[in-house]
């Protein structure tokens, strides 16, 4: 026979002072874990949201990222007329040779400088990325030293507002518009005309990558085979979505930190919960004796204290979830973005930090494990109290 849940629940409430401390402690642990995971999640989801399912990205074999890749104009000329490539309404092949470059720009508020990714794109490049929308001003004009920047980037860097000027060494680029890319990796980029970019960055014969759209599934397969098997080209081809899904190395340190801190802090929290539960058991010795006399089994007493521990830390978990949700709401309301250097492109990636329902569930589960582990020994102790002397105790 199990004890009614009400008994545990009221016990937790009557000792509100110790309850409060334990709950606050567990809440702190849970919110640290959720918030760190939320940073990692932000980076991962920015990668996951990037790319169109039908697109293929071509880079140099051996390069790890677009920024380290080189594709020559000759290679582009060969590739551009492959018949597997789709054509747009005007009959042009939907293929875009692009240049990915980095410029160093001052951060807003005088907080030093950081690298920003500049992408030289062609008109086809815009067609290939329909999710990128213009929100202010206009797109750059081909043949002009103009740039359209991501709005999120503009919030972080000096001179990225419409009408502002970006400096690339002796060259000046005029900001003529801002775009939004729906939380994708393009939100960390500034776009300009590919040919102008080649001129400014001295890449007369070089591009970084080629983005293209095959006609259909079959064309996609045959094009992939054709490029992969052509040893002379020395190029690597993969779906755009796959390429970006792999670019999550930046999230790794946050995940490691969340894991390490979560472990260390939860051990501390287990000790604290244990302390509280032992004190609970000690002060309720007579009560436990009474329960046993009334016929509740040892098992029932163990389960009872375990449930109490879980309620206690679960409350902490709930508060922790609430706290992180509060931080998240604040961050979203204020439009705060986070940025960190991507070690592959050496440019700053801007991302939104995301507290998702699965992270909150994880935090809640985590808190319950803390409660379960923390109350196991005290619960066993309670069940082993000798009934008669327990009854006699004060």
């Amino acid at each position, binding site marked *: 026979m199990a004890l009614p849940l009400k008994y545990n629940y009221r016990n937790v409430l009557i000792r509100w002072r110790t309850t409060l*401390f334990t709950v606050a402690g567990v809440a702190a642990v849970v919110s*640290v874990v959720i918030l760190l995971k939320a940073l990692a999640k932000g980076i991962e989801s920015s990668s996951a949201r990037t790319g169109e399912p039908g697109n293929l990205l071509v880079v140099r074999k*051996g390069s790890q990222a677009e920024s380290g890749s080189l594709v020559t104009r000759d290679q582009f000329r060969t590739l551009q007329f492959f018949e597997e490539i789709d054509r747009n309404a005007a009959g042009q092949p939907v293929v875009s040779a692009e240049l990915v470059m*980095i410029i160093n720009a001052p951060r807003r508020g005088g907080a030093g400088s950081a690298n920003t990714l500049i992408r030289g794109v062609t008109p086809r490049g815009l067609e290939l990325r329909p999710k990128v929308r213009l929100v202010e001003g206009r797109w750059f004009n081909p043949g002009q030293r103009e740039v359209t920047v991501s709005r999120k980037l503009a919030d972080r860097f000096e001179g990225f507002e419409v009408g502002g000027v970006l400096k690339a060494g002796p060259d000046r680029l005029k900001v003529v518009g801002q775009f939004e890319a729906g939380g994708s990796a393009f939100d960390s980029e500034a776009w300009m005309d590919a040919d102008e970019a080649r001129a400014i960055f001295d890449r007369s014969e070089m591009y970084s990558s080629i983005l293209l759209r095959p006609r259909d599934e079959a064309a996609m397969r045959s094009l992939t085979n054709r490029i992969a098997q052509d040893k002379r080209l020395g190029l690597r081809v993969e779906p755009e979505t796959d390429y970006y899904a792999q670019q999550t190395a930046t999230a790794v340190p946050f995940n490691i930190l969340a894991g390490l801190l979560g472990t260390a802090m939860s051990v501390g929290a287990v000790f604290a919960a244990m302390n509280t539960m032992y004190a609970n058991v000690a002060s309720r010795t007579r009560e436990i004796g009474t329960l046993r006399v009334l016929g509740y089994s040892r098992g029932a007493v163990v389960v009872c204290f375990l449930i109490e521990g879980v309620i206690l830390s679960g409350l902490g978990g709930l508060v922790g979830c609430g706290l992180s949700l509060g931080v998240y709401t604040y961050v979203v309301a204020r439009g705060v973005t986070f940025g*960190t250097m991507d070690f592959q492109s050496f440019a700053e990636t801007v991302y939104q930090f995301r507290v998702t329902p699965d992270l909150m569930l994880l935090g809640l589960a985590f808190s319950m494990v803390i409660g379960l582990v923390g109350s196991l020994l005290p619960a066993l102790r309670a069940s082993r109290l000798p009934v008669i002397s327990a009854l006699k105790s004060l």
Partner: protein
Amino acid sequence: MSDAGVHPQPAATPPGRHRAPGISIAGFVLKNALRNGRRALLTILSVAISCALLVTLMTLQRELTVPPESESASFRIIARNKVSLAQPLPARQITTIEKLPGVRQVSPFTYFGGLFRDETVTSWAQFAVDPARFRELILEGKILEGTYEAWVRDRNSCLMGADTMRRYGLKVGDSLRFRGTFYPVDLQLTIAAVYAGTVDDRNCFFHHALLDQLMDDWGMVGTWYLIADSADAVDGVLERVNAAFENTSAEVRAETERAFQLGFISMIGNVKLLFGSISAVVVFTLILVCVSTMSMAIRERFRELAVLKALGFRRRELFAFILAESFGLSMLGAVVGIGGAWLFWSSINLQKLTQGFLVYFEVTPRIMATGGIVAALLGILAALGPSVSVARTSVVAGLKTLD
């Protein structure tokens, strides 16, 4: 709640004369602290874990934000393309730079960023330099094996850091293969010599001429690495280098090696804020744990404290008992935690575990002292709450307490 009614002669009877023979004040505190051994242990352990965590976080923050100091780093200069580090510079600039007054030596310094053997991440750097010029630039470096001359002579050889040699069990004469990531070429290098004694003994240096040859004489370098005649000459050199290439197609930004490192770190993002806020939460949790344990311990013996009060002990003395106990427990926890963290981090080879991401991870005395101070304040803070409630409760009410 006047004490006058229950304390007939509070001041006239000093507690020292009341105590039972054989029990000193210190013994009394100690007995109290340890009478619930399990709780004392759990308290010490939770304080210890939190202190260890705090010390670790501070060390990590220091490691990430303070680059290792080297005396000559202040008069060594790195000049990069003003556009960004990723943009190369024309090799012909060297003739202009070496003629500038105050420049003792200059070498090309190009980050190759290749993948060693079958690794998928670049776990240590390879730089292309001019060996003849580079000699004057690694002042602190000592050659452990092989000779510098052997490296200078052989265009296909390299100078390797002792740390990396140890990590992979390499020896002089071994052949190394690197797959290019930024450069569309692969390298095949023979180890000619081993260096040690610099702030970072992990790198591999090879002939820039080899890279030029593989890249079909591309005529570019990654950055310039300069050393000034003296520390006083540095500012002048920085100005002259920047001015020399102003309004050319490749403008240059020169900064001291140290400023360059700090700039690189600032690009990672706001590391200080992140670690600062996590540390704050850890300290907050620490306070909660201690306060709650102390108040549990005190509530348990509320009756006893009321008895002591009735015997004539004053609030001040009761506060001292509680303070001594709480302070003692938290300091013990601090010693275990901070000492443990120090022992742990200095005994494991973190550089090997993190593949060179964390190199020194030194738990400095300053960090340990900070941890100790936090624990001490904590002990005092935790004693305040219970002391106040003891002081507030009248003896009669205290004696009636059952729990």
